[in-house]
């Protein structure tokens, strides 16, 4: 083994890391205040926009224009691509909400950091929005828009305090950036955040790997300094997004106004099946209310019940919870990842200890709490997705190398091909289909999995607040238009679930095998194409519980 070098070398390594980190931390504000802000042309108040990518033979490949600082910007149909820049002189350091919608693939970046993205896939959501805490002074916005057919529009709005009213940027508060070196500044800001990360780690490891063994007598101090250094960038540059606001008060108000006799809790399975207004009509005007959290499973339903329904103070006659397969005893399913983290924050005012224990298992220790804290600040989940996607895209590129639209389309085709290749119907020999679709065999053992699930706390909440519960198991998509039949293990599981619910004062209704739910009623996956067709069937089957 080689001898360690002198202490000077070690200090040099540490200093490199530290200086790099500090530089990266202060780089965006320095650029904004020393280069972008002073270089702004305040007489030109609008989006400086560059159109490019002509859709037909034109004498020019692109042109620039200053568009007014209005909410909507339309793209000239002769061009596929637009890039817009604007400087916003933020008057007050506080939370702002930014809303964005676009007709095609587009992205909003603020000071080099991606804030919002819109793509044809997410168009169904119509409006993307994000909260961000801004410091007073200049901030650089960039909008990128791409529509392969040319033309289109995108719209951006700002909700500013104190009224949080949706407005366009005021002309007095905006300016056109100086185009000299704009891209360079933007890229420097873009790289500063990962740079801070990286240099912070470098400094930390320099201490750990070099100074720690050398300064054996001061090991404790060295450890504390190391941890502080690794965590420091997080403290210095908090994530742009603030905590997603809790939507509870809005839902409470709606529930109080409506005073529904029946409340439905579920995800898209509920959304695609129950038409509230039709059901109200069938019930002769009795009000109903659906609390839908897309993608959510039992953990989310528990939170919805605890923080959206109960604090409203209403007393519904029954609460219906929609579920599929064995998801009621899968406490960890769909509780992590960027989407669910945001959703959880929206439906809870603070961290719920029961949810943390059941959904994140061991992740209740101080170490994991610290890990989650860092995860939130550094957006690890989001960055992980980005990096993993990049690896996947690189593999696609290596499979079909080259640039250009045609090659890109071939790569997209390959991606679909891979997804099709590993579709559920092609899985068999090596694993059990049921286990892949609805969890593992372990979970099919109801008695051993129920204690670790959200069922006991859901039932406890219902008992405490005197809500009779009805669990509705939806029928999964029938195969080849035949009747849906459960496996023997699944039948056993459902029988045990039914017994358990009955003992605990709840009711189970199972739609599996219902002859009036053929394949033709289904849309995508297990969703029903038209809720107005399903609602009367639901009303008919559960008439006894609805009267």
């Amino acid at each position, binding site marked *: *083994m*080689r*001898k*360690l*070098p002198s202490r000077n*070398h070690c200090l*040099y*390594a540490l200093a490199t*890391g530290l200086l790099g980190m500090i530089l990266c931390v202060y780089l965006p504000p320095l650029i904004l205040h020393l280069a972008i802000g002073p270089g702004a042309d305040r007489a030109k108040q609008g989006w400086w926009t560059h159109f490019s990518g002509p859709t037909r033979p034109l004498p020019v490949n692109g042109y620039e224009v200053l568009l007014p600082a209005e909410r909507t910007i339309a793209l000239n149909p002769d061009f596929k691509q637009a890039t817009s820049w604007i400087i916003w002189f933020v008057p007050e350091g506080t939370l702002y909400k930014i809303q964005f919608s676009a007709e095609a693939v587009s992205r909003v970046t603020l000071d080099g950091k991606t804030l919002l993205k819109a793509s044809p896939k997410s168009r169904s959501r119509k409006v993307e929005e994000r909260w961000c805490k801004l410091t007073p002074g200049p901030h650089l916005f960039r909008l990128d828009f791409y529509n392969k057919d040319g033309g289109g529009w995108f719209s951006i709005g700002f909700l500013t305090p104190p009224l949080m009213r949706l407005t366009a940027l005021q002309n007095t508060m905006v300016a056109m950036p100086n185009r000299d070196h704009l891209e360079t500044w933007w890229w420097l800001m873009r790289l500063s955040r990962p740079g801070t*990360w*990286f240099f912070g*780690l*470098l400094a*930390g*490891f*320099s201490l*750990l*790997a*070099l100074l*720690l*063994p*050398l300064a*054996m007598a001061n090991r404790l101090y060295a450890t504390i300094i190391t941890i502080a250094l690794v965590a420091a960038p997080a403290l210095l540059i908090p994530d742009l997004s603030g905590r997603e606001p809790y939507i509870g008060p809005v839902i409470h108000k709606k529930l109080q106004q409506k005073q529904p006799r029946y409340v439905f809790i579920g995800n898209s399975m509920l959304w695609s099946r129950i038409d509230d207004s039709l059901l109200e009509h069938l019930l002769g005007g009795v009000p109903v209310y659906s609390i839908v959290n897309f993608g959510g499973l039992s953990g989310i339903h528990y939170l919805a019940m605890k923080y959206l329904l109960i604090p409203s103070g209403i007393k519904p006659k029954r609460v219906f919870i929609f579920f599929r397969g064995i998801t009621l005893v899968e406490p960890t399913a769909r509780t992590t990842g960027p989407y669910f983290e945001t959703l959880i924050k929206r439906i809870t005012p603070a961290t719920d200890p029961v949810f943390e224990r059941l959904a994140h298992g*061991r992740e209740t*220790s101080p*170490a*994991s709490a610290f890990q989650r804290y860092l995860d939130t600040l550094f957006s*690890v989940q989001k*960055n*992980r997705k980005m*990096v*993993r996607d990049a*690896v*996947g895209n*690189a*593999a*696609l590129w*290596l*499979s079909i190398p080259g640039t250009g639209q045609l090659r890109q389309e071939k790569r997209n085709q*390959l991606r679909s*091909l*891979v997804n099709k*290749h*590993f579709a559920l119907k*092609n*899985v*068999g*020999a*090596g*694993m059990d289909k049921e286990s*892949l679709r609805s969890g593992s065999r372990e979970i099919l053992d109801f008695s051993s999995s129920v204690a670790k699930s959200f069922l006991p706390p859901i039932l406890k909440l219902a008992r405490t607040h005197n809500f009779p519960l009805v669990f509705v198991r939806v029928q999964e998509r029938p195969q080849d238009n035949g009747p849906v039949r459960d496996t023997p293990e699944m039948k056993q599981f459902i029988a045990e679930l039914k017994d358990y619910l009955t003992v605990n004062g709840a009711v189970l209704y199972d739609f599996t095998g219902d002859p009036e739910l053929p394949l033709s009623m289904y849309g995508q996956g297990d969703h029903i194409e038209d809720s107005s067709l399903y609602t009367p069937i639901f009303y008919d089957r559960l008439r006894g519980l609805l009267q």
Partner: protein
Amino acid sequence: MSFNSLAYLLYLPVVFIVYWLLPYRWQNGFLLTASYFFLGFIHPWFTVLIFSVSSVNYLAGRALGRWPKQRKMILLSALVFSLGILGYFKYAGFFLENLAVLLQTMGMASFQSSLSILLPVGISFYTFQALAYTIDVYRKDVPPQKQFIDFSLFISFFPQLVAGPIERSRDLMPQVEHRRQVTPEMLNHGLLLVIWGFFKKLVIADNTGLIAYKVFSLSDPGFYTVWAGVFSFAIQILADFWSYTDIARGSALLLGFKLSRNFNHPYFATSPADFWRRWHMSLSYWLRDYIYIPLGGSRVSAGRATGNIMLTFLLSGLWHGASWNFVFWGGYHGLLVLINRWFRIVRDRLKISVPGWFIPGVVTGKRILTFLLVCIGWLMFRVTDTNRLMELFQLLPWQSDRADLQVAVYLFFLSLLYSLPIWFHGLFHLHWCKNHTMEDPLLDIVLMVRPLLMAVLFLGILLLRSPSPSTFIYFQF
């Protein structure tokens, strides 16, 4: 507990701090307790088993020193006990199942085997380590150990307890017996090995493992997809097992112990025999020293030498698991080594030589060919169902469509991208070893670059770790 668990990340620093705060005479006792806790964390009952194996072999060692006339009987007793335990827990179910099938085939009254035995974690490793000690004492290569605590620690030292390396008493026992010295270099190397090990497990093994898992879950896979899956599995098993060894070596270094290497870039081997000198080296050397050479090795007639090689490899296969596919895998490797050996004999007799300028090309070709042959073996290793294995071997390229090829190419590149650090490490090692004589260039890397490497690896773990972590493959052996 598993290395890739949060529990271990808490356990190791606690053990490290308490261990170095304790005076020397308490350290072994503490490490033994910590090692039993480590194993008992998985299942408390496992500690009883390791205690009995340690006790019997310790007593056998002492008895061998005290009663020289009964040496053979004492050795035989220790062997019967240790192998009996291993045989019962690992092979009883397999034996009964096959006996039932055999009786049925012969038209005799058969039975339904319902024996379900929990396989104790690490049993194959610590049994072999204990056996090696007893045989070494019998051969008078090492003196019998007097201190039971020291001997028990040698058997159950937690970093290498579950998946090796299988240490020899002559290497590890002196470290147990004497005061450990820890140097900044050792701490430095230990930390780097642990981080590198975690990177290999969480990023490379788990990601490629996910690809292999998906491929082998397909009910009707095509030829190309299967072999892309085999490539992924080849990466997974190397990264998975190697990572365990690295974390074990790194953890041991932090405690002042130096464990032996278990891997030396096996996919850069130039022949099947070379592969076994680079793959799971501690097992290869164990089999060589305690089975192959006692059988006569290669210094016997050609026919017997062939038998010795085949027997050694079949046992190696069986050691990996109580299933026919592992026996086939062992036999296949034995056959490869034999073919390679015959080829060398023919080449030497015919005095075939390659011009100097052509040697790098030939070596590269040999490396690629060896890797491909090893991959064929991995298919046998991965698919435990014999019928399914036959089905997959019968797949032919022209039966697959273009879509299958496209998907396979994508999967191949995806696995390749995730495994790039291992390939680069291997290439760096090959280049470095030409001019240097150290065991691993990674540990001898310029010190200034080391924090950078650690930071990159740590970042890699954060950003690229698989969404579906799995347990270490070699835990089942």
